[in-house]
């Protein structure tokens, strides 16, 4: 395990792309990091490579070029159909050792957070987890990764100066999607896959799609979000009605998730989802940093809270000081009235 590497030999930005049954996953995270990877590659004046493992990937690989990759590295084999930590780590590490990328980005999804640390340990390099911002240092031409730290109470900027590839996982919902351009051309390179089913230590016995994830709060145009201040009495039921009136998805803070009123799939904030809807209505939410890191980029924020000094008002465009129990029914009535 020697740390000394000839850093100038490492070139290009790689992005790991997640697939399910040969197609891009429902989450747009992989495309978001592809878009971000393109920006970083342009800043460095280098190429962007998408890396995808799975089965029947021909079409998806071609699409990645239209989305901005110069090169797509494809490992296409039945044994790779379902994500498996070790098989994927083996193939990506092998390719990285041979081709020497300077940056490797992975989505901070469940899969990405399982895969990235294993790759980084084996390649003896640093991986900055859950980044919300990436940039290139103009002078040193190295990756500058920013992530929430200390439970989301502060932000930390982290470098990986002497090891390659510089790795980061990127939170969903924080990077812009790339544009599709039919005119783009690039190269699809097939990686040799020698692994066989019997080489895989871990067997997948069953795969089931989560029911709760039918709703994807990250794609919602409008979100009504509940804090503990909106959970007393029948207030939460009224909030659901408000969401229906607004054609919004309902989400909430971690404490609300802990009461069991919402599922983890719609928990917004540091330990949940990051959202940026057109309209974010925060009801009975005080606005801890753990929560606001997950919603601060929403287009229009409305806050309803009985404490006029609540932090959430610092993030709001419109504020109503009042008890959710009184304001929510009034708001429902007004919305109904405005429709007539």
């Amino acid at each position, binding site marked *: 395990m020697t740390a000394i590497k000839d850093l100038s030999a490492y070139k290009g930005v790689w992005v790991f792309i997640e697939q399910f049954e040969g197609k891009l996953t429902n989450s747009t995270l992989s495309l978001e990091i592809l878009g971000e990877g393109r920006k970083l590659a342009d800043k460095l004046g280098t190429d962007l490579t998408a890396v995808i493992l799975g089965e029947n990937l021909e079409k998806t690989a071609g699409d990645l070029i239209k989305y901005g990759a110069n090169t797509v590295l494809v490992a296409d084999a039945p044994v790779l159909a379902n994500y498996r930590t070790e098989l994927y780590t083996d193939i990506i590490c092998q390719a990285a050792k041979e081709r020497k990328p300077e940056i490797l980005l992975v989505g901070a*999804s469940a899969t990405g957070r*399982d895969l990235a640390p294993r790759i980084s*340990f084996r390649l003896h390099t*640093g991986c900055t987890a859950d980044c919300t911002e990436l940039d290139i240092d103009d002078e040193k031409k190295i990756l500058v990764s920013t992530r929430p730290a*200390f*439970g989301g109470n502060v932000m930390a900027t982290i470098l*990986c100066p002497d090891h390659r590839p510089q790795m980061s996982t990127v939170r969903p919902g924080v990077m812009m999607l790339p544009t599709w351009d039919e005119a783009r051309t690039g190269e699809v390179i097939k990686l040799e896959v020698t692994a066989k089913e019997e080489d895989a230590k871990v*067997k997948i016995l069953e795969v089931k799609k989560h029911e709760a994830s039918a709703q994807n709060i990250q794609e919602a145009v409008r979100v009504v979000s509940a804090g503990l201040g909106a959970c007393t009495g029948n207030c939460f039921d009224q909030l659901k009605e408000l969401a229906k009136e607004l054609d919004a998805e309902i989400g909430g803070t971690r404490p609300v998730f802990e009461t069991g009123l919402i599922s983890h799939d719609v928990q917004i904030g540091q330990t949940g989802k990051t959202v940026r809807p057109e309209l974010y209505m925060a009801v009975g939410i005080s606005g801890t940093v753990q929560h606001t890191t997950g919603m601060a980029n929403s287009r229009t924020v409305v806050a309803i809270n009985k404490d006029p000094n609540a932090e959430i008002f610092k993030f709001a465009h419109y504020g109503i000081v009042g008890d959710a129990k009184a304001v929510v029914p009034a708001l429902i009535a*007004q919305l109904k009235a405005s429709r007539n």
Partner: protein
Amino acid sequence: MKIIVCIKQVPDVTEVKWDENGSLIRTGLPSIINPNDKNAIEAALTLKEEKGAEITVVSMGPPQVEEALREAMAMGCDHAVLLTDRKFGGADCWATAYTLGMAIKKLGHFDLIFSGVEAMDGNTAQVGPEIADFLGLPLLSYAEAIEVGEGTVKIHQKLGDLTRVIEGPMPALITCEKELNVPRIPRMDLVFECFEKEIKVLGMADVDGELENFGLKGSPTRLRKVFSPKRAKAQVEFLEGTPKESSQKLVEKLHEINAI
């Protein structure tokens, strides 16, 4: 069966306070066993009760981590190992995994390693998977249920919008989710007993390994700066009046900007 549980003592970051200038006050926070790691301890204790097991709990940190290890023993863990050395200081995920991995190699035979999915202060979720890679173990992450068979272990894995049942040979490393169980409260008799028990303390010289891989020196990542998240993004316009009046104003505003 021999089980190793890796735990971390963390400041309770849900108790964070700010001074009048908006700066984070880091001191005075209570130190606790990382919540996910308590799920890992509970998982080991459940197996101990079902099948019989010897549990060793391992943690790296300053000498005060002894408290966390004693608490784990009061919950029912049999042995405790404290990895403490000034040279371990400043370790990032890579160097932490290296140190824990080297120590685990020293501890000899084991069947399972449990850790929490992630720590509540750093939230990186990296050290568990990295130890698995270092020791060449199958990684069974995000466990919501664990079933031990003959030489194999099966988990229900919560992988984003999928739930999978996956199985691997032992020894293996399992990272534990909150949904896996409800950690028990330490038993009073064990609380008294745990203060009698010995905690094995290991420093850098005891775990071998290469000097340049420990602590800050062995950490590929470097912290450039820490800052408060951007606040006050918006200039709030308060809509005043009774609930009815303020709601009416809000609906008008939202219509004006085409938000509804």
